[in-house]
């Protein structure tokens, strides 16, 4: 039973992934212009030069030919060469992946931990000053455009207090432990921005799922059996309430990536978000295709993980 469930989910995930693969190929092919003309004036490229370059990129071949080549290469793990730099796309992405892992990973972690804690406490003491304040705070941060929040943080912490650098990943001047400190300094504001941006949502969801679980039969039963309140919470309510929140964390991964684009832009953070932004501006199809595919694959993977987790922990789902 469980095996069949997982197999079904896996199949669906693979199907979705192939769909993404095909879609992102055609999506970028209908972009209004070509990747060569962008700087044609500054590079003094004549129209013949542009044609020649397009031919070199294989962009003058018929679309089906391009598509077959693209799918074939992708299955061999070959994402091609960046149109802009001429280096392999895997290297381009490899160079940018760690800053984003660091930024998104840490902020997701912090947002989840703090969101869950705030949510539990708020729900358990529903209506208390803490609950009201934290709920309102969560709603406010949830309603904030991340880019703007980042700008305001720059205004406060860089312009006014002067505590942190305004952008970048490192100053490149340090090594060893000094370098870690340097990165942490640069990381603080973008990480804070993303964390604040997501903490609200997680807190709200955690709060309502704790509220829901609180009313469920088994909690009532446990209480009736005279289990102490804190034990009810720790051993019954919280573990059950955690599930929807963690699921949401996994499901919302795609949104976090979106947030990374704007936050990396505001803070000059040299990660995948910034790479995406530049690649769109430069119409660097190979890079865009790879990012699109990888991020979709990640989201699919996380969704799959969430589905399986859900199915494992809540047997009802498997039947449905």
């Amino acid at each position, binding site marked *: 039973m469980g095996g069949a469930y997982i197999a079904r989910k896996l199949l669906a995930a693979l199907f979705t992934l192939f769909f993404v693969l095909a879609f992102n190929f055609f999506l970028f092919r209908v972009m*209004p*212009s*070509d990747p060569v*003309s*962008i*700087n044609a*004036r*500054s*590079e*003094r*490229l*004549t*129209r013949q*030069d542009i044609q020649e370059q397009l031919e070199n990129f294989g962009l003058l071949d018929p679309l089906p030919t391009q598509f077959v080549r693209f799918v074939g290469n992708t299955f061999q793990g070959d994402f091609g060469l960046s149109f*802009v*730099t*001429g280096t392999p796309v895997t290297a381009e992405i490899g*160079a940018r992946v*760690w800053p984003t*892992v*660091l930024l998104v990973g840490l902020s997701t*972690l*912090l947002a989840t*931990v703090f969101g869950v*804690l705030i949510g539990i406490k708020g729900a358990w003491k529903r209506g208390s000053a803490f609950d009201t304040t934290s709920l309102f705070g969560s709603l406010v941060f949830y309603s904030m455009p991340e880019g703007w929040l980042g700008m305001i943080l*720059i205004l406060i912490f*860089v312009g006014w207090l002067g*505590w942190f*650098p*305004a*952008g*970048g*990943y*490192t*100053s*490149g*001047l*340090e*090594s*060893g432990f*000094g370098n*870690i*400190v340097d*990165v*942490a*300094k640069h*990381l*603080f504001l973008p*990480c804070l921005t993303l964390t604040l941006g997501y903490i609200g949502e997680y807190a709200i969801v955690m709060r309502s799922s704790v509220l829901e679980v609180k009313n469920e039969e088994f909690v009532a039963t446990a209480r009736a059996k005279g289990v*102490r*309140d*804190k034990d009810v*919470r720790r051993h019954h309510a919280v573990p059950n309430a955690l599930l929807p929140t963690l699921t949401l964390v996994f499901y919302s991964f795609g949104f976090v990536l979106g947030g990374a684009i704007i936050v*990396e832009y*505001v*803070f000059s953070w040299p990660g995948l978000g910034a*790479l995406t*932004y*530049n690649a769109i*501006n430069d119409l660097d199809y190979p890079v865009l295709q790879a990012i699109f595919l990888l991020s979709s694959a990640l989201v699919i993977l996380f969704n799959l993980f969430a589905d399986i987790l859900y199915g494992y922990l809540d047997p009802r789902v498997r039947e449905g």
Partner: protein
Amino acid sequence: MKATRRAAVLAAVIWLTGGALMTQPVSAQTSDDEPVIYDLGVDSDLSHSLNPWRLCCGPDYEYGELVYDTGLAYSQEDLTAAPKIITEWTPSDDYMSYTMKVRTDATWSDGEPLTVEDVAWTMNFISKYKMPLYIGYFPFNPTFEVVDDETLIWHSEEPTFAPEVPAYFFVLPEHIWGQFDTAGDPPAEGAPQSEVDAYNEALKEGRSAAREFANEDPVGSGPFILDEYRKGEYLHFVANPNYWGGHPSTEDPRAIDEVYIRFFGNLEAMTQALEAGQIDFADGLTPGLFNSLKSNEDVVTHVADAGCWGDIAFNFGGQPGGKATNHPALQDLAVRQAIAHSIDKQEIVDKVFERTAVVGDSFLTPGKNGSWYLDIPPDLEYGYDPAEANRILDDAGYLDTDGDGVREMPDGTDPLDFEFIAINDVDGSVGTGQLMDGYLRDIGIKMTTTTVDSDKATEIWGSGEFDALIWDWCPDPDPDFILSVFATEECGGWSNGCYSNPEYDALYHAQKQEMDRDEREQIIDEAQELVAQDLPEIVLNYWSELQAYRSDTFEGYHPTPNVENGLLMLGYSTTVNYLELRAVSEQAAPGAGDDSSGGLNWWVPALVGVGGIAVAWVLISRRSRNEDDEE
């Protein structure tokens, strides 16, 4: 118990901020052998790669000129030809050939000597493979003949002043780049077509291969050697101790040992970095940021002539492909005159450029083009005068016959509704468009603005599907290239809007063949007057590059050209400043650890991640304990 919780939160905050606060005064103390580091901030990464055949924008040329040497340089004084690797150049009487002397004391950074063969090979490669970007400097299919180990001859098919423009190119090592020169000799006269085709195909392949080479370890002869390129972050250069001129850092402890060119995703971050002393120089500031720096007493702001002009280019139609959608009214000089009269150029400068540009009149710029520039006499200009504009249109028969506020063609048919293309990644283009809309409305002309990116604009420009472009041009110091923008033969090429005027074409060709500097200048003056009169485009303004630098770290900036508003960095030949700048004191420049292998590694995220998990764990366990206490 509440206190412990707070302590845990505090621990998390300290873990993140602590580093920041603890390490504020980083490594300000230096010893004598600590390197002097110069940090330059720019707003974009290299546009392509480290390949010198594909330079474009931003810091590209800065990289090129630090790592490589050009054959000839632009003089710092007035941007005329100056010696570099080529030290002397003498034309023959008929200007069909130039004899050039090449310096013999230069070496490549891999230890090989730089020879006259390298110089001749590079120029031959450009001429033979028609390398984009450089081929314009090598007209009339020149060939290059090595005479002895310090002399070569430039042979041209026609008389030319091209070497004195100067011909701009980077001398590249044949032992590296020769691998792309695989086409062999051209087929003999009268060879079969298949042979010619094969040769052309080989040229194409060589050209592509050379342009696509990643060139990750550039071998050059320039004053600095590239140490590291971190995409999206910085370029790091160290002094070339074997530089032919002798690198100043080998003698003067205050001279620059290392250079960082840092890329900032947005200008805001760059400005903050300058204010915080993290960089020494900031380029490409916006007016708002620039003005905000004026209150900082350690920062000097500098308005430099960018050598570019913003314009409105009209479309005359006839682009190859037959898709042109130009409005017939724009072929009428009266309409173009009226539009020129309707524009308040000063207001555009004030509002769109926040007074950092100056009103323009000719397609050559007063700064970069120096003496070639003609200040158009007032009686040849169409100044701001909406009433006059309305009168011209009335007289020419463009009347608003149907009373909708928009004039129609004299025959009463088409309304004067023009499609303007504004380009959102060109400075001031969209803002100018917004103001233009009002100016044209005042004279009964409707304007529809389409806002696009410059790549789309390039396509529209080529197909001719527009009435006017709000764009810019940055001419070379020599006027030859920018003159081609109005030549009939460039329709489908560099022509702005397929303007065609035999009188202009005659002037354009005459200046190409005139070897006498003064005679040529007169011809070019005439061309400038003609364009100002006939209005194939309207030059709106010359914009400025807004630069700023810290005065408490380095001193000794020389502008190029040597006028008050010359560029300090990121201009033609401004790289000489990297050799001439001196640290204000030995302590001023921030030093670096001797191990430069730091930076971005997998273990940095890993460590921080582990730290984060640890903090989370502490928090959660504290929490649980607190719960127990509470009961």
